[in-house]
């Protein structure tokens, strides 16, 4: 298929996210308005009933997160969208979604924090919160689009991963990507993979809602109403779904939750490598800042500087191997981001001293500019 077959549309990042959800087959959206995510809800309020789906504005973010988990248990593909303050409020029920293993997609269009912060100012300040915001040990999947096209495509991907791994998946946008408009080639039906709920095989007897049946460690998931009458709880439970105080069983549930994601790494972890092979300096970037990195990298190459880019499309689970591989070749890594070095520290930990790691951290609501990155390249070369 060539580009001309497809109609390019000018879309806003938030809108592309909403349309991606529709493409992925969303059945249920619950949300609470908050800048700069609100357009996602607004588009879906209009589009969902057209597609036979359900949109509800709940009384707050806590309820929104609860509603999408509840809806997911009926077999629906579900999503909610928010920004920092709402993301903080969703944390308890987000953790519930992880323990109860309910697929759903949670979008955080990041704005400048902490607290009410700068509601219309862009930031990438919730990267570590995405990983650690809810209490207790838990794994997290989080994707980070850098273009409006990716807002569409990665939303589809997020729904797929949610279904495949029976877990909530995070989409971490930032205000810049969420609000900018650029062209999107909307794929035809069938063009992008769409994963549907992995249900117990027809005729399954003695279905155990939390017992994996294969090496993926992901238990097939029946829906409420299918006739299996299973129990779901946020207490640590055995494979029947009923709570237990047995420490071995509790520990192995937490372990399995982590292992199912570990085993799926290949499917989950996506990075883009640009001119890595001969690079002395590699910029590790994600989200809107990856765009500045791209511009800076091209300018640097023009000047003859050997600069490459490792773009993190999946941020969690962290692409440790990919980063380590790059660190083993390059002299220096530069991590520009719109926070005080959250991912930089993770890179630091991943490279165990194998390369020097430099950060650029804007916390003033201004995008990291190509100039800032170029200056840092000069500094470290």
């Amino acid at each position, binding site marked *: 298929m060539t580009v001309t077959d497809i109609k*390019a*549309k*000018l879309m806003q990042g938030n809108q592309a996210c909403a349309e991606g959800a529709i493409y992925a087959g969303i059945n249920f959206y619950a949300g609470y308005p908050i*800048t*700069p995510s609100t357009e996602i809800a607004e588009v879906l309020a209009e589009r969902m009933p057209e597609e036979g789906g359900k949109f509800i504005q709940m009384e707050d973010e806590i309820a929104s997160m609860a509603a999408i988990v509840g809806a997911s248990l009926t077999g629906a593909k579900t999503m909610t969208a928010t920004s920092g303050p709402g993301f903080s409020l969703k944390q308890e029920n987000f953790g519930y979604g992880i323990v109860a293993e309910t697929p759903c997609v949670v979008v955080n269009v990041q704005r400048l924090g902490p607290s009410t912060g700068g*509601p*219309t100012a862009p930031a990438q300040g919730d990267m570590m919160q995405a990983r650690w915001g809810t209490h207790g040990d838990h794994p997290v999947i989080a994707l980070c689009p850098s273009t409006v096209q990716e807002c569409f495509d990665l939303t589809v991907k997020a729904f797929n991963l949610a279904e495949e791994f029976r877990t909530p998946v995070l989409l971490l946008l930032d205000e*810049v990507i969420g*609000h*900018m*408009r*650029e*062209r999107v080639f909307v794929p035809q039906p069938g063009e992008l993979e769409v994963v549907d709920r992995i249900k117990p095989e027809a005729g399954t007897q003695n279905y155990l809602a939390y017992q994996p049946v294969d090496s993926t460690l992901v238990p097939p998931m029946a829906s409420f109403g299918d006739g299996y009458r299973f129990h779901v709880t946020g207490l640590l439970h055995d494979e029947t779904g009923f709570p237990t105080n047995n420490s071995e069983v509790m520990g192995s549930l937490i372990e399995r939750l982590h292992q199912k994601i570990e085993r799926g790494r290949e499917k989950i972890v996506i990075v883009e490598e640009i001119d890595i092979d001969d690079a002395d300096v590699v910029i590790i970037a994600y989200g*809107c800042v990856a*765009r*500045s990195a*791209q*511009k800076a990298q*091209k300018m640097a190459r023009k000047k003859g500087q050997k600069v490459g880019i490792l773009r993190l499309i999946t941020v969690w689970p962290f692409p440790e191997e990919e980063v380590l591989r790059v660190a083993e070749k390059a002299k220096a890594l530069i991590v520009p981001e719109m926070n005080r070095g959250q991912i930089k520290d993770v890179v630091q930990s991943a490279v165990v001293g194998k390369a020097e790691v430099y950060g650029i951290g804007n916390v003033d609501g201004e*995008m990291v*500019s*190509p100039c800032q990155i170029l200056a840092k390249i000069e500094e470290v070369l």
Partner: protein
Amino acid sequence: MDKEWEIRLGGTGGQGLITGGIILAEAAILDGKVAVQSQSYGPESRGGSSKAEVIISNDEIDYMKVKDADLLLVMSPEAAKKYKDEVKEDAIIIVDTTYVKDFEATKGKVYEVKISHLARHEAGRELVANIVALAVIVGVTNVVSRSALEQAVLSRIPKGTEELNKKAMAVGFKAIEEVLNAA
């Protein structure tokens, strides 16, 4: 046109500049170009100043923010003050003299048009000042084709306002022609 255009539209909330930017980007896409549009808001959604940025290019656009603009439109005194220096040496600057009095450029070529006034009195409603402005922009720069502009405008506006908007475009084109001819 072959160069990459970095465009900044500045004014106050309610002047429709973001819609203006969107239409411009959409027109560029209709012309087969690559375009990116971004913006900035006041607190949450209201009040204060408003800014739309558009980059139009033949190639993929990496960085979506405009630094020094090739084309600047200012429709409020605050915007004029804030943005007039963030332009390239050879920039084109369009000033809505309805609101921006005594504009003094340090760089670039300035075109003065009473855009909002014309929208209100010639096109019929000040609401379409942004459309008048787009026509003025296209009149000076041909950054997008006139037909793409018209198509983009008509696809973004509320049903029933087609005539009003067509008139606004005509008013804009006419006004800028007069300015160009006078120059």
